[in-house]
């Protein structure tokens, strides 16, 4: 509390000062302010006596009244979006004013970190605002998706192609070694809970190896149609208001508000169809069976291997013989031994999405409202996957009093989701896609859809290592119910024109209920066809005792901030704006979960009471709070040069009492250089230069300060059924937590420098923005792995340092603008980020994010970019010839080397729009170039013989071209040892599964038509438009990536394990139509 007092005293003093000015002898000037365009009355216009702090605002009828000194004076009339006017009063008592729209300014209003609108001229830092029209060039279920290709320096990845999946959004590269690198999402001034909701295997790790179901980020719960704009803030300025939570940047979301005028009713309806965009390419020459060491093949209808004989078109059985009609004889299904055309495509159904929204808005001088309801329902590309969301939103603004206004924003989303499991080992049978790609290329999925058919069920189905993917889709359950309430109340009090007191209270309450149900099933022993149609009985191990788990969590965020702002013209040309305030942020999360143990007693009854052994329960609860005090001052010189200084102090509950207070600050300067140059005749309209320098603090994770003890630990969990755990032998137990708590943690500190320019040429036909930035994050709180011989596994230390630097550029062009209203506009964005780990810890130069034991690890390593792949790499002679061993197999270095990085070289996007009268055609392309990902699909399909690479040597024994063997004296001799494709590929090395993550994607193509006003007005409508759109029409991937979408990798959320592809549901192409009618 001590530290708050000076601030409060200061605020009080400012306030007192502002109000203690006594009024001198004065006279009264009144007038009416109207719009120059249509003569309508303008409320809310600022009227200030120039050079003083005296001022007022026009009322709802556009009338104003101001007391001014007896003689002379100049009144300044200003309003965002209108051209300011200065009028000498002289002796007049009535001054009516017409104000014209400032077309250029209108487009350059930005949302500042304070959540208020500000003239773009005054902003010293890099920012980019995407308005509603640009955001929704085509309808999106998720507003994050809509940002792709449209903003510079934004990297978005997703957890799955299934319904409602999560997104991860990183601005300017990862800066925190072990913390959350996702941008903070702020909706109407209130930070929301944007955590990703993951279900599935309770042992799910961040790379999703164990199978996870992705229930999305909570940002997904917002209806994109209610979003007015998204502003991306990346520099230190972003954090002046949101503090440490915003250290990874901020997305400021502004939702729609009503505007003055009569009731407007908007009806918006979108329908689209989705088809799976399968990027995995499989060979179509060899079918089910085995390859023998001599290169011959054996048919085996129980195998997941496609290492069998070459296709010959001869009709053969593909299901096991079973007696379906109890006649004592067996029957089976046969088909020509050929690859199934579009095999994987036919695994999926056509998805279908319907979105209907209705909004009402309007208002008068004192009151505006925007209220909407929308429903989004989607049937996913997989059977039995669904997403349904109902959104209610009401935003109200009210002028309670001449000097007091308030806003109330309420939004509620109710989401239900039925999805599938992603990731996992394919053998485990939880991920339907991974199960499917385990299948040989001659298995017809379209026939298996009827999974209850005995031939397709546990007796007849071919799989020894797989089960029917439609059984997984229909009988397994991965469901969630999400309720998300966001309430936001603000009050703004303007006791006098230049003083604003504002307070805002936001509450975000999210509850999630997710269930995972696995049916109880057992494969019957079945008969497998071998060579020459001989039969062999096989005892299968595909059984599951069944399980059920349910997890309930609720998260409550409260964010309350109050600010006081004061503006004053210190000199005729020098304007001061000062803001001070505080922020209170409090999060409580509670989670309770239960699961069955040892299987289910009765099949199909999904209840914890149906547990074979006693069901177990877990509980987790945490509470964290951050208090902040903030202040900022801006000096504007002649409306051309601006200097901003902001500072903030935070107190966090996650830091030790001695270190819980931390201070950081930022300074920025910008100048409108063009105003000082004589550019009247030149092509250059606008040149702004800006520079910023600042620091940001970040607190620690929860509960890291002291040593703790865990009661009744699970010693090791070997899967749902097989646990080694306490109580053991009836004895309860306690174990020491393997983390050494650190009671001297300090906050992390990021120092950023950025410099940039905003330019406009040819009357706005070309606009460009460029920013260079460099940030160093030091004192990083790193969870350091310790040598186990310390008795512990990890501790947390303030040691890491990460550097990010890069360039961001955006360019908006109007290449063609014809008098007949034809226009071509183009928006190009480009960004490149270079990250470098400067330090990890005193003990180690690297930090392992992920290690699945396959020999490839994802690390942060000193001198390398964030996220570096390490593994053994293939050995070559100095002449570049591959060195092989005595088996003719490739050899690899014994030491661990750098294989690649997850960081892209650059990210770019192009948005093109052609419009002619009401007609518009647009497309969005985006690309990420460089970077690599680890493909488990590659590993599995090379193992099971379906990858294109398995065709090497036509599956005949071959000698690796140009290969040599190493002689004992270190010389090399030509290799003559032949090897088979399967042995060649499955040589235990995992580095070869690191592949190029580059892509170019045609995200969307839109054709829209807006009916002429004249026509629309005749039928008493305001606006009617219709749009056809197609999304994800075409992906261009590098040749070596015939496996999957490099953007889809692992669950979202705070994890730093990225670029691990584990056979997630593929993305979809969609085709749709949107109808928008405004009454």
């Amino acid at each position, binding site marked *: 509390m001590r530290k708050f007092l000076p601030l409060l005293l200061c605020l009080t003093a400012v*306030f007192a000062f502002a109000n203690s000015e006594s009024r001198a002898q004065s006279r009264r000037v009144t007038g009416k302010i109207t719009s120059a365009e249509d003569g309508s009355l303008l409320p809310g216009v600022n009227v200030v006596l120039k050079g003083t702090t005296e001022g007022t605002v026009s009322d709802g009828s556009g009338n104003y009244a101001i007391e001014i000194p007896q003689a002379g004076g100049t009144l300044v009339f200003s309003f965002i979006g209108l051209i300011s006017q200065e009028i000498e009063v002289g002796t007049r008592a009535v001054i009516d004013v017409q104000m014209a729209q400032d077309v250029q300014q209108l487009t350059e209003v930005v949302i500042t970190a304070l959540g208020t609108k500000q003239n773009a001229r005054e902003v010293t830092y890099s920012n980019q605002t995407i308005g509603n029209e640009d955001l929704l060039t085509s309808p999106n279920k998720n507003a994050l998706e809509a940002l792709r290709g449209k903003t510079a320096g934004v990297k978005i990845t997703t957890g799955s192609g299934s319904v409602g999946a999560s997104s991860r959004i990183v601005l300017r590269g990862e800066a925190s070694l072990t913390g959350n690198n996702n941008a903070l999402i702020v909706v109407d001034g209130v930070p929301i809970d944007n955590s990703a909701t993951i279900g599935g295997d309770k042992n799910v790790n961040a790379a999703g190896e164990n199978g996870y179901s992705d229930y999305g980020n909570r940002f997904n719960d917002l209806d994109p149609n209610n979003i007015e704009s998204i502003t991306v803030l990346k520099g230190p300025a972003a954090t002046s208001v949101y503090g440490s939570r915003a250290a990874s940047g901020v997305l400021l979301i502004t939702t729609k508000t009503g505007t003055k005028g009569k009731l407007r009713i908007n009806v918006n309806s979108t329908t689209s169809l989705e088809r799976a965009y399968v990027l995995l390419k499989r060979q179509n020459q060899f079918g089910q069976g085995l390859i023998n060491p001599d290169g011959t093949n054996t048919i085996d209808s129980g195998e997941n291997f496609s290492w069998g004989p070459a296709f010959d078109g001869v009709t053969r059985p593909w299901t096991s013989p079973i007696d379906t009609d109890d006649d004592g004889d067996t029957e089976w299904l046969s088909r020509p031994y050929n690859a199934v055309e579009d095999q994987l495509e036919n695994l999926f159904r056509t998805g279908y999405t319907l979105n209907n929204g209705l909004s009402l808005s309007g208002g008068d001088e004192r009151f505006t409202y925007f209220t909407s309801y929308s429903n989004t329902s989607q049937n996913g590309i997989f059977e039995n996957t669904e997403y349904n969301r109902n959104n209610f939103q009401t935003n109200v603004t009210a002028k309670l009093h001449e000097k007091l206004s308030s806003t109330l924003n309420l939004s509620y989303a109710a989401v239900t989701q039925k999805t599938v499991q992603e990731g996992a080992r394919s053998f485990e049978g939880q991920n339907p896609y991974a199960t499917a790609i385990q299948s040989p290329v001659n298995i017809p999925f379209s026939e298996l859809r009827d999974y209850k058919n005995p031939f397709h069920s546990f007796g007849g189905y071919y799989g020894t290592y797989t089960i029917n993917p439609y059984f997984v889709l229909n009988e397994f359950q991965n469901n969630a119910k999400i309720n998300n309430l966001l309430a936001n109340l603000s009050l703004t009090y303007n006791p006098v024109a230049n003083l604003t007191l504002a307070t805002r209270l936001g509450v975000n309450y999210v509850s999630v209920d997710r269930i995972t149900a696995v049916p109880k099933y057992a494969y019957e022993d079945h008969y497998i066809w071998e060579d020459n149609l001989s039969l062999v009985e096989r005892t299968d*191990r595909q059984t599951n005792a069944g399980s059920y788990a349910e997890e309930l969590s609720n998260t409550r965020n409260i964010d309350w901030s109050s600010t006081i702002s004061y503006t004053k013209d210190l000199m005729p040309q020098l304007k001061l704006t000062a803001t001070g305030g505080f922020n209170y942020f409090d999060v409580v999360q509670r989670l309770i979960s239960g699961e069955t143990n040892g299987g289910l007693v009765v099949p199909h009854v999904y209840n914890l009471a149906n547990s074979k052994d006693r069901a177990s329960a877990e509980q987790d609860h945490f509470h964290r709070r951050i208090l902040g005090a903030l202040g900022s001052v801006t000096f504007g010189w002649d409306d051309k040069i601006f200097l901003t200084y902001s500072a903030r102090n935070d107190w966090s509950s996650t830091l030790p009492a001695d270190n819980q207070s931390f201070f950081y600050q930022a300074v920025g300067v910008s100048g409108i250089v063009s105003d000082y140059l004589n550019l009247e005749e030149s092509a250059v309209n606008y040149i702004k230069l800006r520079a910023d320098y600042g620091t940001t603090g970040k607190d620690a994770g929860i509960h890291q300060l002291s040593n703790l003890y865990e009661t009744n630990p699970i*010693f090791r969990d070997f899967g749902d059924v097989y646990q080694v755990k306490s109580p053991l032998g009836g*004895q309860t*137990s306690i174990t*020491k937590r393997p983390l050494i708590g650190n009671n001297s943690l300090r906050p992390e500190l990021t120092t950023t420098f950025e410099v940039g320019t905003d330019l406009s040429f040819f009357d706005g036909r070309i606009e460009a923005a460029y920013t260079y930035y460099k940030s160093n994050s030091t004192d990083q709180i790193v969870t350091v792995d310790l040598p186990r011989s*310390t008795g512990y*596994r990890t501790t947390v230390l303030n040691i890491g340092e990460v550097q990010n630097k890069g360039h961001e550029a955006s360019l908006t062009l109007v290449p063609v603008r014809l008098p007949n209203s034809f226009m071509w506009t183009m928006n190009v964005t480009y960004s490149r980020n270079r990250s470098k780990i400067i330090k990890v810890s005193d003990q180690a130069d690297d930090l392992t994010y992920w290690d699945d034991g396959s020999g490839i690890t994802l690390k942060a390593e000193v001198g390398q970019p964030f996220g570096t792949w390490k593994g053994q790499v293939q050995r070559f002679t100095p002449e570049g010839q591959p060195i092989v061993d005595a*088996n003719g197999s490739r050899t690899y270095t014994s030491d661990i080397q750098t294989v690649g990085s997850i960081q892209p070289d650059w990210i770019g996007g192009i948005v093109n729009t052609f419009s002619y009268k009401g007609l518009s055609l647009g497309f969005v392309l985006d690309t990420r170039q460089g970077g690599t990902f680890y493909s488990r699909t590659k590993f599995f399909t090379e193992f099971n013989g379906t990858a294109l690479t398995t065709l090497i040597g036509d599956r005949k024994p071959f000698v690796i071209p140009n290969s040599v063997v190493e002689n004992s004296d270190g010389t090399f001799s030509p290799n003559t040892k032949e090897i088979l494709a399967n042995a060649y590929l499955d040589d235990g090395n995992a580095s070869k599964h690191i592949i190029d993550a580059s892509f170019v994607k045609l995200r969307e193509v839109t054709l829209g038509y807006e009916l002429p006003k004249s026509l629309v007005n005749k039928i008493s409508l305001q606006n009617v438009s219709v749009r056809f759109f197609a999304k994800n029409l075409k992906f261009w991937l590098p040749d070596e990536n015939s496996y999957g979408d490099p953007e889809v990798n692992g669950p979202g959320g705070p994890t730093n394990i990225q670029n691990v592809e584990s056979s997630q549901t593929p993305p979809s192409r969609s085709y749709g139509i949107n109808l928008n009618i405004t009454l």
Partner: protein
Amino acid sequence: MKTTKIILTTIALFVMVSCGDQLAELNVDPNESSTGGDGPEVFTSATGYYGLALDAFFNEDNGLFAQYVAGGPGVALLDLERYFIEPTEFNNEWLYSYSDCLSDLKYVNQNGNEALANVAEIFSVMIYQNLVDQFGDVPYFNALTGADEGGNMAPTYDDSKTIYDDLVVRLDAAIEVLSDTEEEVGAEDLIYGGDLERWIKLANSLKLRLLMRQSITGDQAAIGQQVRDLISSGTFLDGPADLARIPFGGATGQNYNPQFARREGGVGQFYVASKSSVDVLTSLNDPRGLAIYDEAEGPGGLVGLKQGDINELVSPKPADFSFPSAVAYGEANDVILMSHWEVRFLRAEAAMRFGTSDNEKAMYDAAVTAHFIHVGLTPADASAYLQGNAAYDEGATTLQKSDLIGVQKWISMNGLQESEGWIESRRFDQPGSNVFTHPTNGIFETPSRSVFPAGVFPTIRLYPQSEISLNAQNVPARVITDKVFWDN
């Protein structure tokens, strides 16, 4: 103005209420305890973790190294089996030994009563000896201090022999305290239920194990004297009630035997009888063959698979081979820390080498008989066997007797104490006969596609990847054919 004052006062009050010292209190973890109490529950935890480390990791790998089992149908050729081994293979046993068991035991030693503290001491010695026998030099004197004031975050490696010597001293001290303590140990002791007499027996037996490891290559005179003194003065594990084991409840207690849980929770139990073991058992006409392994379902009888041969077979079926029996593999099997027959083998060997007060043949016979009974056979079965192929000839040379004890001891650990079986196979594999590793006559067969030439087998564990990554400045260089200090 009045309104403003009200607002500011409210803000000030609110902030005062919500910050300050209270802030730190929010960060207290309500989910976990801040103390481990005075130790009993922590001792139980250490027991559970060691059962896991020993059975699911040490025994699992060593079953292959000791050629009790071979990777059978269900998997591709295991890298481990052809000795293509990465340091990551050994992360878990190191992790659970140090960061869970030893660290928990240190807590018990510091917080428990006198009796429990010294029981924990004996347990710690057992774990450290195992670490030395598996890894050679390991962090010891400055290990486990991570959370201490000024603790060592990068423990150095200590000389194995020096560790061994210190372990003997620690055992002596613990035995002394336990011999006349008034304090008690209760049901938290899953091994002996608080029976301190048995802990003293285990301590003496462990001391014998420590000394006998050095009996071939060490200072014979000094070791011999220590062994003679120990045998004449100490009490030892000497019957089924003394068997040192950690019980696991199986499905009922939801506590599966760790090796069982690891296999069933993973790719399944695909290990089949190793041809090396089957050949020995068959040549001795040993009735325990069909007690340790089940009959092969298809052909019947004992059928083993040559190490590493699974890839050479065209279409192997599980039914083609013998699998470990219920004695060796089961959901509720105990994890054996030290068996009474192991101790009898040690005593027989001690008598044979150093002329202790025991009778070497009687001890040997008692050891074999105890194992027969444990696997479900009768004393009569044992007696016949001991008069036949496995008869102990007191007149034979030391090397011949050593080979006989070595092979019988190795058989007695099949499926029960794989880890100890592998350790002892290395010790009994002596120049002159190389009963296990001789390229032509040795019991062990060089696996197909082994990365080593014939007759070369792993003799030590690699240091785990976690040490290579996290303790790089201290971890010594290591290849898997290095030897621990007592090895031949």
